């Protein structure tokens, strides 16, 4: 096990968004997280990546408690995030957005400017344009490339396909084996249930800040997932 949350709770001020969430990730494994809007998926990603801070033991990475560390520190330990909405830096060019991903951690692995351009050739064409001038799909490629640049051990993808055209989504998922070829683990937050079940070896479904269902995709029937996704009342 490379990454684990233990009874993770998280709040925004007085508002509690997570109520004791337990998930775990093996090295090289892909886990996906599904759940309706507001279920707490982004909050979970923020807690792991250090944007939200918690009690130390609530997040454990390679056997060490990291729940209380700031995001900058967690990134340097090898967890990189592709945030919801991509969050590129508008003042930076495409290439600078990629470079800034590696300025504070190079890591050991195959990823550098050259290999990211090889993965997404279109980016090298636009390398000196402002990153936010590109299309949504291309921006997602930059965000993924930026996260890869530090050769992380775990990658977090929040809403990887949100707002993208189906063909672009297919392209990005097609690149996934290469992205994770070095034994990189990944947690993918995905709205599309079928896609999530296809790509992951283990799935968590969240509802109202709790995990309502988990298991290997093969073990989960459609109706059970449906119920866990929308709540028992639906």
């Amino acid at each position, binding site marked *: 096990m490379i990454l684990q949350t233990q009874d993770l709770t998280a709040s925004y001020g007085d508002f509690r968004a997570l109520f004791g969430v337990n998930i775990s990730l093996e090295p090289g494994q892909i886990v996906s997280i599904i759940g309706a809007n507001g279920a707490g998926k982004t909050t979970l990603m923020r807690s792991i990546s250090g944007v939200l801070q918690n009690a130390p033991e609530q997040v454990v990475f390679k056997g060490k408690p990291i729940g209380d560390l700031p*995001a*900058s520190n967690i*990134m340097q330990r090898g967890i990189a995030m592709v945030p919801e909405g991509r969050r590129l*830096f508008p003042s930076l060019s495409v290439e600078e957005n990629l470079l800034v991903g590696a300025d504070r951690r190079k890591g050991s692995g195959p990823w550098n400017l050259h290999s990211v351009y090889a993965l997404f050739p279109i980016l090298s064409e636009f390398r000196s344009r402002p990153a936010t001038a590109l299309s949504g799909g291309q921006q997602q490629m930059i965000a993924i490339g930026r996260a890869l640049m530090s050769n992380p051990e775990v990658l977090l993808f929040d809403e990887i396909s949100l707002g993208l055209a189906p063909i672009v989504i297919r392209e990005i998922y097609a690149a996934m084996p290469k992205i994770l070829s070095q034994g990189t683990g990944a947690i993918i937050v995905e709205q599309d249930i079928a896609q999530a079940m296809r790509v992951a070896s283990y799935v968590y479904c969240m509802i109202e800040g709790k995990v309502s269902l988990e298991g290997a995709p093969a073990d989960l029937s459609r109706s059970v997932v449906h119920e866990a996704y929308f709540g028992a009342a639906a």
Partner: protein
Amino acid sequence: MIGIDTIIQGVLLGGLYALFASGLSLIFGIMRLVNLAHGDLIVFAGYLILVGVSVFGLNPFLSALIAAPLMFGVGWVLQLAVLNRVLGHNILPPLLVTFGLSVILQNLLLETFSADSQRIPVGVLETASVDIGVTSLGLLPLLTFGSAIAVILILNWIFYRTALGRAFRAVSDDPTTASLMGIKPNRIFALATGLALVIVTIAALYLGMRANFDPTTGPARLLYAFEAVIIGGLGNLWGTLIGGMIIGVSQTVGAALNPEWQILAGHVAFLIVLLIRPRGLMPKQ
């Protein structure tokens, strides 16, 4: 009389104002913080250099070289201990804190150095000049202008060519996402303020060698710096240099017409630009 001479003096004076302005612009650009104590920090650095010269007998340039890292430290500590605590959505706290700092600095200087006006002694450099045919130019104003250009070149190089510059811009865009890149926004802010105060030291060196200063000189320098930044357009250092030159020329021309109009003419030029081009002459994008 307004001659070519007056204009050239004004242009060169603009170099000094661009030096005042670069530090202000740097801090604002990266953390959206308007530092009302900027002018007082220039004067503070001026006294620091003066102590090196008059107490330890150093050459002014050497004294500034020693003062620069000290000022960097002042900026670093100031940012981490005070200013980082008030950065955020509300513009009120940083303004009030830096205004408080301005009052503190002025009065500390007053207690320490008295209200007497001072000057950094420079010897022969003070009167040395270069003859360019139409007129002769003071070596010191030329040196000031050259330093302003050098400072802008170096700042632009840092901003657009280095990892530190990328971090500056990334943090300025979005501190949270920058922290996901392993950047510590608070450290970057401290570095930026440290760097700004190094520029402040350079500005102080030339201010102190060219004119008298006293503990209350700061606020007026803040205003010139601010005017240069606004005239040039936010985030454009070459624009800031142009802005400084406009203020400088207005002042020398105003003074040529009537010595009492010098400062007023600079402010009026600023207001006119603000009226016609509210976003400055060279706005970014």
